[in-house]
């Protein structure tokens, strides 16, 4: 049927930040089909110039309210690479524990508050409060756990204060870690119930597939969350690794007329970063309990359905919880000793990478001989995903048209697709907009 369709979603809801969807179909012919990012650049790289290495991470953590732990960790790792600072096993384990807290917290927010309304046929979480009260309460219990977990290790969940190059300014006590372990163990029934809830609506996850390249950190030591080398997996399952210092060669930033944000590509025209990319690259290193969840959803790597990113996030929620328990046990077994800010052994240029909920995050700094930052570069995962979202649009819209979907069905499918990537585009203001009751 040669239909006309006009979709103009200005400021898509239930994503972090602002993005637009525009589709224009005339007489069955796709004339426009674009994912647009209109946000203004924020120039954080220039804000850290002239700042001392000890304060750079505190500034860059302000780039994002959700991934502030990730920005802190990528930042200190880049500073450490530039300044010749080595970490101890204890610091690496504590940072991993903090990284898992952020991943857990962010994924719970996304799966329950931003994705679930689509799966339950609700416009937002608000109508679900009276109809699915216990599910909303469970979501808030898990969210609270993520918040308390991150606050314990990072000083604060949002914009952590304890992480510095070489160590931590404040350590949790053994009693703190034991209490956190008890909370994580107590949360297992909520995790099980979450899997059952998502399984009950899994049939609503669209069955769209498009082969692409998936990029994530990968390590022989762990499931590439806190640390590792850059790895991509191609549609034929072939993997290749690159050192983090080569991050520019694999991101290849370019400018699209549809976006104020830069796009990225590696071997193919686009690649995907995020939970799906991590599971596709590192499925064999998931915790056995997380792997069980992957099997329950019939997840096979490489999975080419971008809507399954939310399922991959759920798998990672369990992985982070169980890895958190393992790390706590190991830290309790060895005991904790003070390891604070470490002095540089050189002043040069260095890159650092870590995984944040939305994908691989790169920071790079150059320092002068006084330890002042003279150059900075950050490549965030949402920007790495924009080109892949566009390529998904290019394949999905003709498929929806061929399936004779209505304009509303097409709009929902495109909105759900963007939401599944969990994009985090920029930060907004949070002022109170109220009227006083006279």
């Amino acid at each position: 049927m040669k239909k006309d369709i006009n979709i103009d979603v200005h400021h898509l809801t239930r994503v972090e930040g602002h993005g637009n969807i525009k589709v224009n179909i005339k007489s069955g012919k796709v004339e426009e089909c674009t994912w647009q990012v209109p946000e203004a650049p924020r120039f954080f790289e220039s804000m850290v110039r002239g700042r001392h290495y000890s304060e750079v991470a505190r500034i860059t953590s302000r780039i994002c309210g959700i991934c502030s732990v990730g920005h802190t960790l990528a930042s200190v790792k880049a500073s450490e690479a530039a300044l010749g600072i080595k970490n101890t096993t204890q610091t690496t384990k504590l940072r991993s524990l903090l990284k898992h807290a952020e991943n857990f917290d962010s994924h719970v927010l996304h799966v329950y508050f931003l994705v679930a309304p689509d799966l339950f046929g609700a416009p937002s979480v608000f109508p679900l409060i009276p109809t699915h009260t216990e599910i909303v309460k469970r979501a808030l219990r898990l969210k609270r756990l993520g918040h308390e977990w991150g606050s314990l290790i990072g000083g604060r969940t949002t914009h952590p204060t304890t992480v510095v190059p070489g160590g931590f300014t404040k350590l949790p006590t053994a009693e703190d870690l034991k209490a956190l372990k008890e909370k994580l163990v107590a949360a297992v029934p909520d995790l099980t119930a979450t899997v059952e809830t998502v399984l009950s609506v899994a049939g609503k996850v669209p069955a769209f597939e498009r082969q692409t390249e998936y990029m994530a950190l990968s390590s022989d030591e762990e499931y590439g969350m806190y640390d590792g080398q850059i790895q991509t997996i191609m549609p034929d399952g072939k993997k290749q690794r690159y050192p983090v210092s080569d991050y520019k060669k694999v991101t290849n930033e370019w400018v699209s007329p549809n976006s104020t944000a830069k796009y990225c590509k590696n071997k193919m025209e686009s690649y995907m970063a995020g939970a799906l990319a991590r599971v596709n690259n590192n499925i064999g290193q998931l915790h056995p309990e997380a792997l069980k969840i992957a099997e329950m959803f019939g997840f096979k790597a490489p999975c080419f359905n971008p809507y399954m990113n939310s399922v991959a996030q759920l798998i990672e929620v369990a992985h982070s919880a169980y890895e958190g328990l393992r790390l706590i046990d190991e830290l309790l077994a060895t005991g904790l000793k003070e390891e604070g800010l470490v002095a540089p052994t050189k002043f040069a240029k260095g890159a650092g990478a870590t995984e944040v909920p939305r994908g691989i995050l790169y920071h790079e700094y150059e320092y002068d001989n006084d330890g002042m930052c003279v150059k900075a570069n950050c490549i965030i995962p949402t920007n790495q995903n924009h080109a892949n979202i566009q390529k998904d649009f290019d394949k999905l819209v003709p498929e929806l048209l061929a399936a004779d979907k209505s304009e509303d069905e097409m709009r929902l499918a495109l909105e759900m697709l963007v939401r599944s990537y969990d994009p985090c585009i920029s930060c907004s203001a949070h002022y109170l907009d109220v009227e006083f009751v006279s």
Partner: protein
Amino acid sequence: MRYIVGVGNYSMFDDSIGIRVVEHIFENGLDKDFEAVELSSSILNLMTYFTPDTEGIVIVDSCKAITTPGEHTFFTMDEIVSKKKVINFSTHEGDVTKVISMAQELANHIPPIKFMGIGVEQIREGFGVSSSLEKNIPSYALSAIEQLKSL
């Protein structure tokens, strides 16, 4: 436990005033018999503090309804109506008053809460706050602490 909670976006100039007040409390060791919390944009986490052992919360935030920059007012949920059209909760989309309403609907324990709304001059991208707000940060902190004592 009692809390003073700073809300806002640190990189959106005057929108960060709530966080700046909490920072001032931290830096000057004023958090003697209460906990100062930098909630920033993670407003859903406010519900973490809605527990039976919470005696009171003062939420410090920028407020558009106060038209004189630098001026501040204390008020409760009963004294305001939110004008924000919030579709959902995320760190970009949200409203502290709606978090409290949601907690009420879920029958959570709601401790005594007062808002400290501060009138702003400029909400735009950038670090810092307007001078009309910056000079008052110490007095905002003391007022918030005094208000907390009365809860």
